[in-house]
């Protein structure tokens, strides 16, 4: 049962021995900061009379070019944040990999166990 359940799980538990505990969730941090920044800017735009006037002027001068550019701007922003999240995650993995020695060299046998093996035996 223990072998079965760990085998049928996706490969993640066995593959990432370095991630035994919860890690910093960079996606949440970066997306949270990004969404928060957009929210703050939008709030300022909505509450400042000059910004409101600028938005109205922009709307009246909308052309297909500006519409396409705006859509591209939004898509680019989403891609940018996604990329940043990926970079942060990769850096995190690299740091975690450096911190964890090669499994064979480890003296502490318990750290070599794939995640999930300990509680399976305990059940």
């Amino acid at each position, binding site marked *: *049962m223990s072998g*079965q*359940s*760990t085998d*049928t*799980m*996706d490969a*993640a*538990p066995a593959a*990432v021995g370095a*991630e*035994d*505990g*919860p*890690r*910093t*969730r*960079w*996606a*949440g*941090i*970066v*997306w*949270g*900061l*990004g*969404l*928060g920044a*957009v*929210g*703050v800017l*939008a*709030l300022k*735009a*909505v*509450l400042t009379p000059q910004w*409101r006037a600028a*938005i*109205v002027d922009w*709307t*009246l*001068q*909308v052309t297909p070019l500006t519409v396409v550019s705006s859509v591209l701007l939004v898509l680019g922003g989403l891609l940018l944040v996604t990329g940043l999240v990926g970079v942060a995650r990769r850096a995190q993995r690299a740091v975690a990999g450096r911190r964890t020695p090669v499994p064979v060299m480890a003296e502490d046998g318990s750290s070599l166990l794939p*995640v*999930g093996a300990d*509680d*399976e035996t305990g*059940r």
Partner: protein
Amino acid sequence: MTDATSTPLADPGPPPPRTPSREAGFFTWVRGLGIVRTRGWLGGVCAGIAARIGIDPLIVRGIFVVTALLGFPALLLYVIGWALLPGLDGRILVQELGRGRFDPTMIAVGILALVSFLPVASWAWSVLFWPVTGALSPTGVVGAIGFVPALVLGLGVVALVLWAISRSHRSSSSGGASAPGSPSAAAPGATADLASANPAASAAPGPADASGASMAGADAAAAPFGTAPAAASDIPSPASVDEWRSQHEQWRTQHDAWRRQQADADAAAREQARREREEQGRAFAAAAQAKAEWRRRTRPRTSALYVLGVLGAGLVGGAVTALSAAHVGVAIACASALLVCAIVGAAGMAVAGILHRRSGFLAFTTSALLAIGLMVGYLGVVQPGSWSMSLSTSAVPQSQVQAFGSTDISVVPLEHGGTAGVVDLRKGSGDTQILVQGGTRVALDATLGDGTVVYEVEPAAGGDVHSSRLQPTRRSADGDVYRWTYDNGIGGAAAKTLVPLQITQAHGDIYVVIMEEDR
């Protein structure tokens, strides 16, 4: 073959087994489906279905939300799934309730069941787009009063459900230490108990092990008693009849035993199949639980209480913002409230990330609030007219922005005369028609990017329509400026109402129609 089912013999059968009740059989069937509610956003029904099919839970959730918004009773189905599908500990909520064990999760299920009977789809549409439709209407103040309670009500229901879930999680974690991995209550006992719960089922007796004699006698057993002796002997002496009877009795006993064996084998096969299904479901549940535990340990979610706290803070911040920004306008106040709520949610996401917690639900809520806030804010700032907008002069000034589309302005006299409020129209592309009624003096101040101003006078007595094209008064950087006044007094008298019109239009013409009146 057919006589096997029609044999009217009273079969005492083996000792009566623990025949599963009708209800238990139903639950056994449900368990056999192999769908196990895993840890998800609410009851984990979508996550369970996704795990069963082997796709991402977000896809199932997306389909669920979309079908619900389209009017499909997805919420009701979700409630049914929540109540009837087994959880990771193998317990079915309704079954537990039937056994007199109350699970606090039932509160959440009950609330959701009540909500599912509301016209959620139309309600959701109107709530989502109310700020757009309501705030832009002239009577938007009423909406401003109604918006905050709607927000409070919606978030309150979410909070209540989350509270019930957190309670159930607490109670299950404190009392259910031995629950994981334990087989479900409906699991059968030993194979000895398997029995002919349904002896009249379509038993297909295999003739392989049935002797020819017994098969031959089957007809005798099935037939009325008198046919067998006719075949046995022409002279029925009492001794031979007794002998025949004893043989027949012996045969009947053998036959009954054989039939029971067949029925038992059939029931055992069914039971075996059922147990295999159940075993599969249990294995799946165990695997799902192991995965869930691994996920909980390595990538834990934010707790329901944390989400609740963040939502509460967002609600407080949003409400305060709405109150303080109410003077700017209803739409702006609503947008500010939504944006502040989203900002608080975003901060909650970032803090959750620092605390090593995933924030799926929080991220979803924050994104939704931000998107709606941006939309409402933009529409509130621009206040765009529809594709075809109609304005009518009144005592109060009016200001409208219209990116695209045509505009109809009706110039009507005020009841007591005087100067009407300025109509300030700023347009992107589209024509403008101005209908000037009698008793008004229209004062047009228009700046046109590339259009012209054409006016026509329709005499009260009929006759030819006089049409003319205005020449620009001057040219500016924004385009041609037209300043033009026309007095449409009734019966030659001076008009009592002055109507100033201020129009800035990037592309398109202005058509003025003057309706003369005699009296």
